[in-house]
C-alpha cells in the first residue's frame, strides 16, 4: 500500500498539469498583448488573478494548520493537496511583483496629486503609503512562506521516515499551527485591507478581514474537492478515498458557503441600514447600474445554488457531482474577486472586461501547473502520520 501511495504518476494529474499549462500560456499571452492597448486594465485584471491564486494558497495554508489542530480524516486525505498548494507561495509572491509596479494605476492613495487634494487620504497616509505598503507585503510573504516551509519540511521528513513517528512529532505540527493560525488570520486581515479595501481608500468595514478569510478557506476547500475527486478515479487513491471523505469535505464546503453568505449579508445589512456617506457608495456602485446583475449572480451562484445543492446527502457522497459544484464555486470565487476589485474603477458599458477573464485564467493556469508539479513530487497521502495508520488501518486492506 505504501508503495502505491508513493506512486504519484497518475495520468489524471499529468493531464491536468498539461491543460493548465496551455490555459496559462494563452491566458497570459492574451494579457500581455492586451496590456499594450489597455495598460490600466491589465493591472486590475492582474490583481484579480493574483488575489484568486493567493486565496487558494492561503486558504490551503490555513486549513492545513486547522486540520493539524483539529484532527479528523478530512484533514488526512486533503493534507497533501493543501501542502502542495502552500508550497506554491514563491510563485504567488512572484505574481505580486507586477502589482508593485502598477501601484499608482491601482491605488488612488499612491498618486501624490490625488492625496494632495484629499484630507482623508492625507490622514491615512501614515498607513497607506508606498514604502510601508511594500514593507508590509514583504513581511506577510515572509511569514507565510516560513510557515509553509516548516510544515512541508516536517511532513516530508515523516514520509522519508527520518522523523520517528512519536507523539512529539505530531506535537511539533500543532505547536506551529496554533500560533501560526493566529498570525495567518491577522496577516490576511491586513493584506485584505492593503490589497482590496484600499482600492477605495475612503471605504472601510471591520468585517472585511473575516470575509476575506472565509473566501480563502472556501477556495481551498473547493480546490481539495476538485483535485481529490480526480485522483479518486484511479489508484493509488481509489481504494483509500471513500464516499464518507467527500461527505465530510462537502459538509465543510457547505459550512463555508453559509459562513460567507452570513458575513456578506451582515456587512450589507449594517451598511445599508446606517446609510452613511463614507460607506454606502461602495454598495451603491455594486447594487445599482451595470454591476447589479453581477451582485445578483453572486447571491445566486456563490450562495443560493451551492447551498441548496449541498444540502443533499447523496450529492455530497458522489465525488464527481461534488467536484462539479466545487468547480462552480471556484468560478464564483473569481467573480466575487472581480466584484470586489473592478467597481472601484470607472468603466462604461458592460462591467466585466475580457481581460478580467483572460489574465486570471492565465495566472490560475500557471498556478495549477506549479501546484500539480508540487503535488506529484510527494506521496499523495501522509502514510507515515501516526493518525493515518490508526484511521486507515482497517479500511485499506
Amino acid at each position, binding site marked *: 500500500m505504501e508503495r502505491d501511495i508513493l506512486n504519484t504518476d497518475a495520468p489524471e494529474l499529468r493531464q491536468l498539469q498539461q491543460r493548465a499549462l496551455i490555459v496559462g500560456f494563452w491566458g497570459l499571452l492574451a494579457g500581455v498583448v492586451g496590456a499594450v492597448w489597455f495598460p490600466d486594465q491589465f493591472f486590475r485584471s492582474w490583481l484579480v488573478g493574483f488575489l484568486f491564486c493567493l486565496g487558494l494558497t492561503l486558504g490551503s495554508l490555513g486549513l492545513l494548520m486547522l486540520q493539524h489542530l483539529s484532527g479528523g480524516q478530512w484533514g488526512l486525505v486533503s493534507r497533501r493537496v493543501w501542502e502542495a498548494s502552500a508550497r506554491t507561495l514563491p510563485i504567488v509572491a512572484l505574481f505580486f511583483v507586477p502589482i508593485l509596479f502598477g501601484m499608482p494605476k491601482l491605488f488612488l492613495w499612491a498618486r501624490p496629486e490625488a492625496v494632495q487634494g484629499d484630507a482623508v487620504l492625507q490622514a491615512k497616509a501614515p498607513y497607506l503609503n508606498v514604502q510601508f505598503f511594500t514593507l508590509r507585503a514583504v513581511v506577510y510573504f515572509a511569514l507565510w512562506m516560513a510557515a509553509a516551509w516548516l510544515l512541508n519540511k516536517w511532513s516530508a521528513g515523516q514520509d522519508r521516515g527520518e522523523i520517528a513517528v512519536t507523539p512529539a512529532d505530531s506535537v511539533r505540527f500543532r505547536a506551529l499551527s496554533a500560533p501560526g493560525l493566529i498570525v495567518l488570520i491577522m496577516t490576511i486581515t491586513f493584506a485584505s485591507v492593503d490589497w482590496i479595501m484600499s482600492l477605495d481608500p475612503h471605504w472601510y468595514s*471591520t468585517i472585511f478581514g*473575516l470575509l476575506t478569510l472565509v473566501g480563502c478557506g472556501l477556495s481551498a476547500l473547493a480546490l481539495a474537492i476538485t483535485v481529490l475527486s480526480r485522483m479518486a478515479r484511479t489508484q493509488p487513491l481509489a481504494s483509500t478515498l471513500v464516499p464518507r471523505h467527500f461527505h465530510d469535505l462537502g459538509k465543510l464546503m457547505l459550512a463555508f458557503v453559509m459562513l460567507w453568505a452570513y458575513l456578506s449579508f451582515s456587512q450589507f445589512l449594517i451598511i445599508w441600514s446606517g446609510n452613511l456617506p463614507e460607506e454606502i457608495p461602495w454598495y451603491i456602485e455594486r447594487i445599482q447600474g451595470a454591476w447589479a446583475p453581477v451582485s445578483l449572480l453572486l447571491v445566486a451562484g456563490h450562495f443560493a445554488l451551492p447551498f441548496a445543492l449541498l444540502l443533499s446527502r447523496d450529492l455530497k457522497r458522489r465525488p464527481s457531482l461534488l467536484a462539479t459544484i466545487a468547480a462552480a464555486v471556484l468560478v464564483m470565487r473569481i467573480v466575487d474577486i472581480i466584484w470586489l476589485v473592478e467597481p472601484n474603477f470607472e468603466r462604461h458599458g458592460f462591467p466585466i472586461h475580457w481581460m478580467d477573464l483572460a489574465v486570471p485564467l492565465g495566472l490560475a493556469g500557471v498556478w495549477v501547473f506549479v501546484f500539480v508539479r508540487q503535488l506529484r513530487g510527494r506521496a499523495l497521502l501522509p502514510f507515515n502520520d501516526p*493518525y493515518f495508520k490508526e484511521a486507515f488501518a482497517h479500511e485499506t486492506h
Partner: protein
Amino acid sequence: MDTPAPHSSYQTPHPVIEPGHSYDSITEKISAIVLTRRHPIGWFATMAIGFLLVNGLGLSVGYLLFKGIGIWGNNIPVGWAFDIINFVWWIGIGHAGTLISAILLLFKQDWRTSINRFAEAMTLFAVACAAMFPLIHTGRPWLAAYWLLPYPNTMGIWPQFRSPLIWDVFAVTTYFTVSALFWYTGLIPDLATLRDRAKRRWTQMLFGGLALGWRGSARHWQRYETVYLILAGMSTPLVLSVHTVVSFDFSTGILPGWHATIFPPYFVAGAIYAGFAMVLCLAIPLRRMYGLEDFITMRHLENMAKVTLVTGFIVVYGYAMEAFFAFYSANVYESFMLKNRAFGPYGWTYWLLIFCNGIVPQTLWLKRLRTNTTWLFIMALIVSVGMWLERFVIIVTSLHRDFLPSSWDMYYPTRWDISTFLGTIGLFITLMFLFVRVLPMISIFEMRTLLPEAKIKGAEGH
C-alpha cells in the same frame, strides 16, 4: 513503523467516562442524586445565597413597578444601560448550551454527553433572566405584549418591522421555544427511568406524567432519534442568529462604537465565550459537590477550556479590528470613540475588559493550568466579568459621548440597577440548583452509550 509508539498523549486523551462503570452503576449514580441521596452542604449554602438574591430581585422589581424606571440610573444620553447590558450578557451565556447540545451533536463529539443536559438547562434559565430586562424596562410589563409582539399593524407605527428590536422578540422567543423543546425531548427517556426507580407514589406520578408514557420500545427510540436530530438541526442556526440579531440592535444604528460590521460574528463568538465560561463556573463546583469527577472528566474541562481560548481569540480579534479601523477610517468620530473608550472617564473599564478577556485566558495555553480546576474556575469567573464589562463598554461609553459635546453626560448605576442585576444572578443560581435537585443533571441513557460495551454492539453508535 514496526512497533506502535506509546500512544499516551496523542491518541488516547483523557476518557469521557472513567473506567469501571456499568450500565447499572451509571443509572444508579445519576438517578440517586434526584431520588435518594442527601444533598451536600454546598447545595444548601449556594441555594441560600441564590434565594437571598432572588428576594432582592423581587424587592427591586416591586419598587420599580411602584415607582417607575426613574429609580434606575439610565437617562439621556445613556438611555440604555444595565437593562440592555444584562440582557445581552444573559442571552450570550445561554449560547454555550445550544452549541453543546446542537452543534457538537452534529459534529459527533461524544464529550458533549455529560455536559449537555445542564448546559441546556443553563440556556433556558439564562434566557429567562435575559427576557426579564426588556420587559421590566418598559415599566409596565403587563403592556409588554402590546409593545413587543406583532399584531395587525393598522396604525402603521408599531411594531416597526425594520427595527432589529422587533427581530429580537422573534429571535429570542424562537430560541427559548426550541431550546425548551430540545431540553425536554432529551429528558423523556430519563424521566421514565426516574419513574421506574422512584419509591414514593407522588414522585412516580410526577415523573410518570412527565415521561409521556415512554416505555423504551424500539419504535419509541426510532422516533426519539429522528426528533432529536431535527431539533438539533433547528437549533444550529439559532446559535448564530440570536446573537447576530442582538448585535444588529447596535450595529444598524450609526453611533460610533455601535456601527461596526464586525459586530455579528464578534457578538456570536463573545456569546459562546461567555457561555462556556459559565458552564465551567457551574460544572466545576457541581462535579465536586456531587462527586461526579468520573462523568465530567478532565477531558470535558480541558475541551471547554480550549473552546474558551479559541472564542476568546475571536473576541480579541473584534477589539483589534475596532481599534485599527477607528484610525484607518480617518473619521473624527470613530477615532474619538476609541480614545474616549480607552482614556475617557470610563477608561478603566476598557482596560479591565482587555485584562479579563484578552490576557487572563492566555493562561489556557498551558496544559498545567488548563487541567487545574481551581484556576479554571477563577478564570471562568474573570471571563464572565470581562464579558459583562464588554457590553458595558460598548453601550455606556458609546452613548455617553456621541457626536455633539453639548449632549455629553455621565452615567452612574443606582443601587436598584445593581440589586436587579444581582437578583437575576440569584434567580439563575436558584433555578439551576433546583434543577439539579429535581431532574437528572447528566443524561443517563446517553452516558450509557459511552461505555465500551455499548460500542461493540451498536456498529454506528448514535
